[in-house]
């Protein structure tokens, strides 16, 4: 039997050991931000040439379904063209929201990917996080011309004239139409509705009820903040102040103003009158409604086009039309470019890795790859030369639906309104706006709902600006 004193010292010693361990562990966690090696500088081209063996890079993305398959094809093509030198591993991280969350986590854990696909509204955050090497720097160092990028797109992703990330999948919202449903209701599918009021009018004719149950809805759309942003842009007004966050850090959002309230009211009325089912905020659920033929009109990104064509095969014909305006009197700027861009990470990555990432990013934005991407998904090519590719031309001739978005893009005048709001907490703002619309749909007065939503995001904006201004 051990003596009590021995036991006491044993307990005491182990307590000390534990304290030491924990202190050591905790001590190191707060200071560094994963910046062990590398930074935001641009290495020269020789960094890759000098690298021995295969430079492995990771690519995080948020593309699933048909689009995920297209990514895999792209990565495969790249790896084949660079065997022995560079190897890209693509990892699906979830949707855009989850991808940026995972990315944030990776910064905290010091294990960032080499290239990451972040959605448009994450741009401000990415810049402020200081984890990436601007694409412009690479281009300048290599004297690589970025002129082939569609000006509207380059505009959106440039801040202070410099391109921070490489646009990759650019989308615009479209109005999708079930051709057979239109014909059956006596409507002309070639003359689609062009604003919210017309949609409501047409939806009334397209909703079919049988014995109290709705068999076909005239219209459906997810409660998606992106649509609200688009409609506001279409009306030529700004989503947030300070010239949509381009002149200075935005300090508040404007969606509680007249335009935002109009959108909320419209959503509310569409559901109330039974013209549209409320499937909530999940875009997948809204997509399922259209794909199953249960709704005749639908709002979604052009990036879903291929998926819809596949799903509707043999069931009905999918047509596309320009995204509606808020009111008939809107001449508006045009819809905002959506989608995502590729960011190259700096801190924590070797020079060879950064160069390899740049090679991948260049590849992904090349005419051939963008043409393949276009026809494989519906996103339109960021590289204007892609449209000249023979494959692309042939595809587009067969499926003119793929051109609607492009036409819409070319018709959009680049203004502050059509460039979208740049806000550090834009993802949260989008969610807040969705909450507002949802509240309205579920019965609250739209003006109140949107006001509450706009107010709820204000503290977060202030907090963000405070943190970043330091």
């Amino acid at each position, binding site marked *: 039997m051990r003596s009590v004193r021995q036991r006491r010292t044993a307990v005491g010693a182990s307590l000390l050991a534990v304290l030491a361990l924990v202190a050591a562990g905790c001590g190191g966690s707060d200071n560094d*931000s994963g910046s062990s090696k590398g930074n935001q500088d641009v290495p020269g081209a020789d960094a890759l040439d000098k690298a021995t063996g295969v430079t492995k890079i990771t690519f995080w993305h948020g593309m699933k379904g048909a689009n995920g398959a297209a990514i895999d094809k792209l990565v495969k093509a790249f790896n084949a063209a660079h065997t022995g030198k560079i190897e890209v591993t693509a990892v699906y991280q979830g949707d855009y929201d989850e991808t940026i969350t995972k990315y944030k986590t990776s910064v905290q854990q010091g294990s960032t990917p080499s290239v990451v696909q972040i959605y448009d509204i994450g741009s401000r955050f990415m810049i402020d996080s200081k984890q990436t090497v601007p694409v412009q720097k690479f281009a300048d160092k290599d004297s690589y011309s970025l002129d082939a990028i569609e000006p509207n797109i380059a505009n959106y992703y440039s801040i202070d004239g410099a391109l921070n990330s490489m646009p990759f999948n650019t989308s615009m919202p479209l109005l999708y139409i079930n051709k057979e449903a239109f014909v059956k209701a006596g409507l002309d599918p070639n003359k689609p509705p062009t604003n919210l009021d017309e949609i409501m009018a047409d939806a009334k004719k397209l909703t079919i009820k049988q014995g109290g149950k709705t068999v076909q809805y005239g219209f459906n759309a997810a409660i998606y903040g992106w649509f609200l942003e688009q409609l506001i842009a279409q009306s030529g007004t700004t989503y947030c102040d300070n010239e949509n966050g381009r002149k200075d850090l935005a300090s508040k959002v404007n969606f509680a103003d007249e335009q935002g309230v109009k959108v909320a009211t419209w959503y509310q009325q569409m559901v109330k009158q039974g013209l549209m089912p409320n*499937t909530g905020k999940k875009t997948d659920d809204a997509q399922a409604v259209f794909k199953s033929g249960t709704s005749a009109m639908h709002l979604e990104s052009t990036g879903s086009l291929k998926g819809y064509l596949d799903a509707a095969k043999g069931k009905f014909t999918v047509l596309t039309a320009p995204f509606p305006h808020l009111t008939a009197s809107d001449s508006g700027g045009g819809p905002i470019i959506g989608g995502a861009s590729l960011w190259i990470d700096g801190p924590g990555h070797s020079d060879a890795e950064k160069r390899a990432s740049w090679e991948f990013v260049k590849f992904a934005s090349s005419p051939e790859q963008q043409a393949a991407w276009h026809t494989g998904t519906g996103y339109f090519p960021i590289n204007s030369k892609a449209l000249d590719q023979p494959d692309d031309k042939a595809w587009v001739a067969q499926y003119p639906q793929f051109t609607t978005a492009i036409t819409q893009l070319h018709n959009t005048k680049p203004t502050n309104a059509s460039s979208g709001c740049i806000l550090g907490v834009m*993802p949260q703002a989008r969610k807040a706006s969705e909450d507002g619309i949802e509240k309205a749909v579920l019965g609250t007065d739209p003006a109140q709902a949107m006001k509450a939503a706009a107010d709820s995001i204000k503290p977060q904006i202030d907090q963000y600006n405070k943190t970043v201004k330091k």
Partner: protein
Amino acid sequence: MLVPCLVVFALFIVWHGTRSVSLSLHGSDLFGRPDAFVGLQHYRDMLGSGEFRHILWVTFALVLLTVIPGVLGGLVIVLLLEQHIKGIRILRTAFALPFAFSVASASVIFATIYNPAIGLANGLLGRFGVDRIGWLTDPSWALISVAITTVWMSIGYNVLVLSAGIGAIPAELNEAATLDGAGGWRASWFITIPLLGPQMFFLVVISTIQSLQGFGQIKILTPEGGPEQSTKTLVYSIYHTAFANNASDFGAASAQAIVLFVILLLCTAVQFGVLERRVHYK
């Protein structure tokens, strides 16, 4: 020495417990690391906001909606099974099946059933001529849908535990009751149920704790906390504040975490103080 290895981990918890408090007193930077000292600001914001009261209400409601049906349902089933009917083994296996499903798998299956566009739940309603219900999109139903899934998951465990408890009741007691003329239901009410007291108490405590900590099914069924935040429980809110949507407000989330701790403490104290006295131990 035997105890120190456990001391190590207790310190894990104690140290992090105090750190949690400390985090709740600071702001957070873009990546969640503690920033400037803000004192009780987070607590003031939280307690003053209607949203927080709503979160507490949701949490409390979910506990009631899952614990009561879960334990009572399990009890009723077990009592019915005790009536010496044929096929008892098949039925008992049937009721134990949910036990095999993890939180994620059960939630995914239910999500498919609840799907607003193509889900079977609405499909079945349609066959009976009832109009669609927004299982996960209607704030009046979302919490109920989550509760149904949670109860389904726990039925298996509850039935198994109560079955074990009944098995421990000496058969003589029931036989004696029958001889005295109090068979069937009366025997159940006056003998079996009281003697199942300890097991039911155990299940109530465990179910409450699990319900307060429920996360997986909420995240899968109603990402974003449900329509009008109707399924945003305290735990989900902690996750949401700290990790979702580009937010990284570890400070505010930690404040909520401390509140969770207090609530759990109160709940357990109440349960042990009030309910345990009513339980008959052999």
